[in-house]
């Protein structure tokens, strides 16, 4: 091609991290490549320059797509699939803009040699931030194909049309050329310019329509490969020695009995002691023969004392939002309510524990990890082994659930180190106990709220302090003239007061914040003697939230009554990742035992364009179901830095018998850009259930989880 619009592919562009060009050509094959420029997407640029600091990584594009000679389209993205369904929704966006069938799209995800750099898969960002440039690139790709077809069919471009991977002459559909034919023998690339117009919602054929999962066949037949399913010749399985508490100091170590096992390889690398064997169960058995003693420092810190401790060590807060004047607000109030809300540590507890298979060959390494962050993992491995960055290759298999918990990559580094030391491929697959022990828990947190109502029943002031949950979802969205929101540390990083690692947990911070805010709102409503739906409506000016709340109430069949009404109905509203959600729960509470049965949950959300309404609905259902756990039961028990819950016998997660009747509503907002879908509907579950329990029996539980014991206690207090 001589057209100056086309660039000869410079593979350094694609593999700025020095991937061998011939390798790339071989792996990628020929075809037409479209790169997604991130320069004019400030949100992507901000991500890149934020938390992680990539070294010699591509700087000019975020992903690319390739139209192959066989007519198939490959989307190369650093995102991974962990159940959230972007494997389907991203393919839909691409197929629609490019005018190919959904089934002709192949997804290449989280491969650090083939896919451009990506920060990681979290924060409901794949569709929100990755979607717009992806659509631009696809639109650009379609434009390129039309231009090529114009030459091929000897017809002006404006006389051509595209459909299902074919370019036709508009006036003579017998004259056509397929995308595959156009790509034949080509190796051309083009950067998306952002100048090709995107389809408008009325032109969507695939976006906004429900599609079944792209990956269900391999997942129902057992073919889907997860990190622990990788098998390499000569591979050894690792069983790693773990301390009984995070602060335990090893005082003696005797590996002699473990070494007696036939075929065993024992690694003692200071902080990493492991037994390797070709059979994982034998490795585990040999590890149990290791004689080891520890000193464990005494501690008064536990799941009951933690809250006082957190308040004691809390730093000065940072004001994240402020309006009006608090003193004036207090003066205008006829009733002031001050409450403290507590929330304990929660485990991520994906059913797939952290796993990684690593293969060191000379000064190169390949790792297959269960990780939400393959690109950061690459850097971590390079650093841990002292390898060149370009010699580290991460290949992402399916991830068996993440929920924010698979971003630290500890197991990736363990596998990499062990493979290097053993000189063989090594698989590290954490046991369930290791999974609980090494989790980066959702942090315990405290919220203090003081708020008032004026004589008309309107909220007059709001004074909100959150300690260690973070500010996501902390800022109230009601119309309160005098309002301040202060966040006292996220508790992450070096100054963490927590006895063990904490981190992001599906909608980090927002579950705790929404529980506190929405509980307080219904307390105010009850004090004002106003129906909680009506109370919210009269205190809301956010039209989007009002629409969402009304949609939930309509679906639920809400009838006004002031609480507690004895009916067991509770409302909570929340905003997360750009999506507004309202949830109404119906519960039944056993007055003798305090046991709660959630009978029905209705949730409505406005998420902008729902690219795959079916997928979005599933995410809402998943949020509601998972949310039952933190609301009702889940709480990590610990003593000092020793975790006491190490399996599902004492850490109960939601089961089939817990699942209520679930109804979801997605508001039609296809003209608005897509917002988050994987997290929003979980944030309201704590508040909706707490409020429903209050409505049922008048018991106000201020601490999650809302256990039967706490309900009984609250009933006594009336």
């Amino acid at each position: 091609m001589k057209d100056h619009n086309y660039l000869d592919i410079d593979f350094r562009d694609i593999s700025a991290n020095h991937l061998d060009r011939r390798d790339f050509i071989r792996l990628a094959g020929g075809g037409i490549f479209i790169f997604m420029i991130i320069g004019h997407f400030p949100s992507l640029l901000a991500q890149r320059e934020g938390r992680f600091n990539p070294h010699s990584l591509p700087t000019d594009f975020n992903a690319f797509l390739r139209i192959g000679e066989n007519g198939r389209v490959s989307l190369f993205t650093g995102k991974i699939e962990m159940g959230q369904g972007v494997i389907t929704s991203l393919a839909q966006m691409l197929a629609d803009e490019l005018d190919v069938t959904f089934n002709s799209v192949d997804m290449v995800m989280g491969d650090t040699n083939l896919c451009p750099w990506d920060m990681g898969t979290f924060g409901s960002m794949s569709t929100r931030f990755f979607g717009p440039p992806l659509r631009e690139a696809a639109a650009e790709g379609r434009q390129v194909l039309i231009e090529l077809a114009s030459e091929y069919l000897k017809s002006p471009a404006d006389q051509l049309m595209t459909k299902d991977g074919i370019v036709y002459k508009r006036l003579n559909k017998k004259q056509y050329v397929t995308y595959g034919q156009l790509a034949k023998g080509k190796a051309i690339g083009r950067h998306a310019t952002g100048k090709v117009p995107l389809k408008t919602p009325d032109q969507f054929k695939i976006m906004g329509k429900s599609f079944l999962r792209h990956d269900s066949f391999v997942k129902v037949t057992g073919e889907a490969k997860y990190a622990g399913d990788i098998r390499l010749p000569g591979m050894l399985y690792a069983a790693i020695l773990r301390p009984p508490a995070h602060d335990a100091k090893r005082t003696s170590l005797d590996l002699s009995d473990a070494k007696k096992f036939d075929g065993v390889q024992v690694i003692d690398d200071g902080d990493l002691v492991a037994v390797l064997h070709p059979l994982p169960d034998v490795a585990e058995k040999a590890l149990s023969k290791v004689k080891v003693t520890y000193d464990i420092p005494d501690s008064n810190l536990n799941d009951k004392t933690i809250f006082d401790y957190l308040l004691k060590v809390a730093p000065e807060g940072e004001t994240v939002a402020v309006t009006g004047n608090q003193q004036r607000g207090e003066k205008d109030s006829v009733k002031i309510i001050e409450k403290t809300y507590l929330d304990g540590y929660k485990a991520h507890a994906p059913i797939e524990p952290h796993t990684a298979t690593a293969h060191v060959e000379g000064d190169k390494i390949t790792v297959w990890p269960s990780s939400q962050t393959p690109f950061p993992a690459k850097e971590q491995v390079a650093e841990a082994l002292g390898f060149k960055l370009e010699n580290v290759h991460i290949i992402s298999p399916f991830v068996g659930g993440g929920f924010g918990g698979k971003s630290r990559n500890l197991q990736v580094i363990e596998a990499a180190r062990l493979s290097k030391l053993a000189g063989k491929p090594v698989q590290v697959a954490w046991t369930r106990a290791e999974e609980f022990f090494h989790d980066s828990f959702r942090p315990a947190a405290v919220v203090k709220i003081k708020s008032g109502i004026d004589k008309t029943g309107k909220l007059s002031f709001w004074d909100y302090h959150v300690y260690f949950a973070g500010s996501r979802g902390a800022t109230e969205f009601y119309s309160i003239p005098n309002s301040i929101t202060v966040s006292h540390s996220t508790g992450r990083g070096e100054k963490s007061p927590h006895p063990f690692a904490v981190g992001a947990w599906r909608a980090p911070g927002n579950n705790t914040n929404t529980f506190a805010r929405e509980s307080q709102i219904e307390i105010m409503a009850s004090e004002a003697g106003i129906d909680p739906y009506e109370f919210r409506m009269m205190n809301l000016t956010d039209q989007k939230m009002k629409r969402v709340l009304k949609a939930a109430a309509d679906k639920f069949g809400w009838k006004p009554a002031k609480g507690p009404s004895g009916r067991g109905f509770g409302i909570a509203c929340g905003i997360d990742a750009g999506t507004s959600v309202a949830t109404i729960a119906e519960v039944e509470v056993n007055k003798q035992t305090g046991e709660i049965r959630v009978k029905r949950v209705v949730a409505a959300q406005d998420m902008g364009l729902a690219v795959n309404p079916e997928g979005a609905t599933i995410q809402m259902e998943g949020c509601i179901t998972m949310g039952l756990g933190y609301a009702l039961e889940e709480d990590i028990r610990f003593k000092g830095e020793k975790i006491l819950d190490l399996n599902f016998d004492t850490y109960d997660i939601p089961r089939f018998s817990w699942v209520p009747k679930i109804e979801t509503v997605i508001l039609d907002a296809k003209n608005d850009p897509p917002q988050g879908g994987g997290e929003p509907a979980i944030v309201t579950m704590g508040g909706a259930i707490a409020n429903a329990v209050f409505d049922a029996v008048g018991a106000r539980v201020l601490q999650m989880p809302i256990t039967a014991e706490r309900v009984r206690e609250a009933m006594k207090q009336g």
Partner: protein
Amino acid sequence: MKELIKFNLNGKPVEITTDSDRLLLWVIRTDLGLTGTKYGCGESLCGACTVIVDNEAVRSCQTTLKDVENRSVITIEGLAVDGQPNILQKAFMDHDALQCGYCTPGMLMNAWAMLKKNPHPTREQIIEEMDDNLCRCGAHKRIIEAVETVSKEMGG
């Protein structure tokens, strides 16, 4: 003690010489290379490792090789019929009854064993039989619906 153990796996005879007190889960996944059966908890608490032994759903993380000697074992790889998903697998696909997919093999094996014994379970029976199979993504509602559909379609 190493010994020769014979059993039937997905319709084919298998002979393996190894410690007979080793757990079926690891023998299937490692020695026999069928990785569809998953480890989840190691203590029979989550059901990810469920296989069918002589028509009973069992937790392969608590079953020794000796336990299956001369018996018939079916894993997720043995559920399809002539390479096509069976009626239950198809129902899971049609209902999108999975997300991350890691618990899915165990869910399918547990539900299939139930359906073989009781082809028309009620919703309550489905919930009771499936209650010890854990899913963290929250696909429960659709799994129940998928099994209910099969319950309506099954003959017998």
